C-alpha cells in the first residue's frame, strides 16, 4: 500500500470563506509531498475533549510541498454537522491531527488526450490540481462545474485559469446554465472529443457522468463519497459494489480501493435513496442469506 503520514498537530495557517464553503490551509509535511489529485485526508475533529471520535474525509484541494511553513495541504470544507462546523470555526494556529494522503488518485491517461473534469459543489475542489497534472502531460482539461445555486459552486475563477474551457451550471439558474451538469455535458463531449471524464460530487451526478461518458465512448473515473469510519482501510464501513476485471461484483472499500473508481464498474443499480443494497450476485451475498 502507498505511504501515508500522520501529522498529529497540523497547524491551520489560513482559513477563508469561499462562497458557501471554507477554504483552509494546514501545515502537513509528509502529506503534501506524496499526495496526488483525487486522494484525500482524514481529519480528527473536536480536539482533546471531543465526543466525535471519527475522522472526517476531505479531498485534497491542493498541496504546496514546501514553502515558508513546510508542506501545506488545502481543503475546501462545507460546514454541515458537528465535525465540519468545528473545523470551519478553527482559527490560525489551532491544530488538529491529519492522516494522508489516502486512497487512490485519479489515474492519468498514458497519452495526451482531451479530458472533461466534472465537479459538483465542493466536488470541484480536487479538479484544478488534476487539470494542472493533465496539462503537464499534454492533455486538455475541460471543466464543468455544477451546484444547486451560485454560492455552492467552488472555484469558478480558478477554473477559468485552470481549464481549457469552463462550463457552469446551477439548478436554480443563479449562475451559468440552469440545470444539472447533464444539461451541458453531451455538448462538451461533442465539442472537445473527450475520451476520459473525471468526476467528483454527489452519487447521482457521478452516475449521470458515467452514463453520458459511455454514450460518448469515454471512460469515466469518478471519486465517490461514502461514509467512512476510519479512512485507512480497517473498518469495512465504506464499501460499495464494484465489478472487477473478472466480472464478479465485490463490496470493496472506497477508502482503500477508491475513492476513484471507473464509473462503469460501479453497480449503480444497487444505490437507492442514500442506501446501497448488496447485489444478489455479489461475491459472498449468498452466505448472508443463511445468517
Amino acid at each position, binding site marked *: 500500500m502507498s505511504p501515508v503520514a500522520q501529522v498529529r498537530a497540523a497547524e491551520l495557517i489560513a482559513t477563508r470563506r469561499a462562497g458557501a464553503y471554507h477554504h483552509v490551509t494546514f501545515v502537513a509535511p509528509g502529506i503534501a509531498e506524496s499526495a496526488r489529485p483525487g486522494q484525500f485526508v482524514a481529519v480528527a475533529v473536536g480536539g482533546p475533549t471531543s465526543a466525535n*471520535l471519527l475522522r472526517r474525509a476531505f479531498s485534497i484541494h491542493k498541496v504546496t510541498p514546501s514553502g515558508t511553513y513546510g508542506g501545506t495541504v488545502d481543503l475546501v470544507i462545507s460546514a454541515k454537522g458537528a465535525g465540519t462546523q468545528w473545523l470551519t470555526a478553527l482559527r490560525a494556529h489551532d491544530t488538529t491531527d491529519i492522516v494522508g494522503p489516502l486512497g487512490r488518485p485519479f489515474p492519468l491517461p498514458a497519452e495526451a488526450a482531451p479530458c472533461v473534469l466534472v465537479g459538483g459543489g465542493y466536488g470541484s475542489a480536487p479538479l484544478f490540481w488534476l487539470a494542472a497534472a493533465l496539462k503537464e502531460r499534454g492533455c486538455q482539461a475541460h471543466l464543468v462545474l455544477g451546484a444547486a445555486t451560485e454560492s455552492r459552486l467552488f472555484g469558478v475563477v480558478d477554473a477559468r485559469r485552470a481549464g481549457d474551457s469552463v462550463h457552469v451550471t446551477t439548478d436554480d439558474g443563479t449562475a451559468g446554465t440552469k440545470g444539472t451538469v447533464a444539461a451541458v455535458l453531451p455538448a462538451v463531449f461533442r465539442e472537445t472529443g473527450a475520451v476520459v471524464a473525471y468526476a467528483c460530487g454527489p452519487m447521482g451526478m457521478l452516475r449521470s457522468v458515467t452514463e453520458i461518458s459511455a454514450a460518448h465512448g469515454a471512460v469515466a473515473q469518478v471519486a465517490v463519497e461514502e461514509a467512512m469510519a476510519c479512512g485507512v482501510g480497517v473498518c469495512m464501513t465504506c464499501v460499495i459494489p464494484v465489478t472487477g476485471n473478472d466480472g464478479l461484483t465485490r463490496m470493496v472499500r472506497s477508502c482503500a480501493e477508491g475513492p476513484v473508481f471507473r464509473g462503469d464498474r460501479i453497480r449503480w443499480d444497487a444505490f437507492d435513496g442514500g442506501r446501497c443494497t448488496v447485489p444478489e450476485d455479489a461475491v459472498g451475498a449468498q452466505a448472508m442469506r443463511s445468517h
Partner: protein
Amino acid sequence: MALDLSTSLGPVTLPNPVMTASGCAANGKELARFFDVDRLGAFVTKTVMAQPRSGRGTPRMAETPSGMLNSIGLQGPGIAAFCAGDLPMLKDLGARVLVSIAGGTSTEFADVAAHLRESAAFDCVVGVEVNISCPNVANRGQVFACDPLSSAKVVALVREQLPRDTPVIAKLSPDVTDIVSIAQSCVKAGATGLTMINTLLGVVIDTETLRPALYAVTGGLSGPAIRPVAVRAVWQVAAAMREGRLPTVPIIGVGGVRTGRDALELVAAGAAAVQVGTATFNDPTAPVRVLEELAALVAGKGFTRFTDVVGVAHDRT
C-alpha cells in the same frame, strides 16, 4: 527498574498485553503502514467464517456520542482464502496472530477451526478467539453468547479441533442478564480464556429521513462510550473467579480503550490483556500508543511486572 510487560494467555506467553480488536484492524497490511504489527502482544484478525461473505448493505455505520454503531455483517474472504492469503501475510509481518472465528451453527465454528489448524501458517497463531456474539441460525438468530448452552457447545466443538496448547478464547457479549453464567459455561466447556466485551446492540434513527440510520437497522455500539460496561463485565467475571465461582482463566479486556489510562482500568479490573478497537479509527497508531502509555503508567506507579497490576483493584475496594 525495567518493567516486565509479558502476560500469559494460559498455554502461550505474550511479550506484552496490548492487541488489536477483531474487525477494527483488518488483517495487518493496512496498519503496517503506521507501525510494525509485531510490536503488539498479538494481532487479532477480523472474524472469519466458513464462506466468503459480502457483508451488509450500507450505511454500515453511524457516529454516536463518544462511539459509533456498526453493522458490517462479518464481511470476509472465508476461511480458505484467509488461510491462503491473510494468515501467511500476517506471519510475514512477524505478527503473533489471535484468529477470530465464527459460524452460523456450532458445526460451522468447528469446520473453521479445523481448516485453520491445517493452515501452513498455523505456527504464527497464538490462539483462537471464538466470536460467539454471532447470530445462531438454529435459535431464531439470537446470538450464541446469549445462551449458556449454545455458547458451551460452540466452545467445546472448537476446542476439539485445535491442539491442546492453542488457547481457545470465548468472546462474550455484554447484552445478557448474567455475564458470569455465560463465562462459567464457556470455561467449563474448555475455553482457556475470555474476551470481554463485544459491542452492545444499538439503533440510531436518522432524524432527517426518520428512518434507521443503518441499512441493517440494528448495529453494534463501540468506543469510549461503552468503556464502563466493559470494565464492569471484566470486574464481575474476575470477581467471580476470585470467589471460586468459576476457574481462573486469563481475561482479555476490550471496549472503549483509547489511552493507556483506559487500558489500565480494564487491567486493574482483572484483564490480563487489552484490545484496542474503535480508537484505531480515531488514531491508526492507537494500539501501539496505548501500549506505550500503559507501560509508562504502570512503571510510573512502581510496578516491575505488568501481571502484578492485573486485578489489583479487587484488593483495594
